[in-house]
């Protein structure tokens, strides 16, 4: 009887340890995947402004500071939805566009002087800067 109680307690301790290890692992992984962001306020495009859409002529790849690679598809279309101090923000018109940081985040492309300079995460009101801006091959403007 007593030994069964001891066995149950040992089992509970083992489960607790496993859960703690998994939690710690998740936190470490999360820290590993995280990228520095800064809080920003997007100034939305005024309703009276003309709609501005760009289309990429070829695929664009950009590396985040956590070493993950973000790809914008050739032919993808992006609509200007607002402005940040860092540049203009464009939302995907070709389906949901997300990037993987600490979590999967919807992202808008931020461009300045014809270059992709970072991403705006609208769900977190945060800006994520690229260490190396990438030229945006814009094929079409409306």
């Amino acid at each position: 009887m007593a030994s069964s109680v001891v066995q149950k307690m040992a089992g509970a301790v083992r489960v607790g340890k496993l859960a703690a290890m998994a939690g710690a692992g998740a936190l470490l992984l999360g820290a590993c995947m995280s990228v520095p962001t800064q809080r920003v306020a997007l100034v939305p495009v005024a309703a009276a402004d003309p709609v501005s859409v760009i289309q990429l002529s070829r695929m664009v790849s950009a590396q985040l500071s956590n070493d993950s690679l973000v790809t914008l598809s050739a032919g993808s279309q992006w609509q200007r939805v607002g402005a940040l101090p860092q540049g203009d923000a464009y939302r995907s018109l070709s389906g949901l566009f997300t990037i993987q940081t600490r979590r999967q985040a919807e992202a808008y492309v931020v461009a300045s002087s014809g270059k992709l300079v970072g991403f705006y995460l609208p769900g977190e009101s945060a800006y994520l800067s690229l260490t190396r801006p990438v030229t945006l091959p814009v094929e079409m403007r409306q």
Partner: protein
Amino acid sequence: MKVWLMKLAAVAATAVALAGCAGPQYQSLQGRIPPIAQGNGRIYFYQQQTTPVAAAQQKLRVNQDVVGRNKPGSFFFVDRPAGSYVVTNLYWTGEGVSFMLDAGQTRYVRVTAESLGSTGAVGNLSMELVDPPERAEAEMLRLRYWGAATPERVPGL
């Protein structure tokens, strides 16, 4: 006789309650799900897994509010004003998704529970934004409605 009737009533009540737990399938709810109120968007949560090892549940949070729990083979939804949202588990341990919810828009969050081997305990809860909506709706067809937290439940479903 009276005791017998009371027992029967109790059994019937339990059966009704259990049937309520199971919930109707998404495919049978077409036309019964209320429309989204003006200015709001809708967030669906669903979990396809049906394996018993992943059966444990965790609370899910939309921004600061706990809105319900995941349940294998089930779905639920909450309506929120258009705006910015972060969806994660109760303890905000990193996994999750963030997005902009427009008025009239519906977002779909697929929840996957990672089991800790034979213990049956659930480790990380991972979430994924599913797009396009048709894909999410196809994945939800056979899933059963599992109510959100009490204030969010839809009466009659």
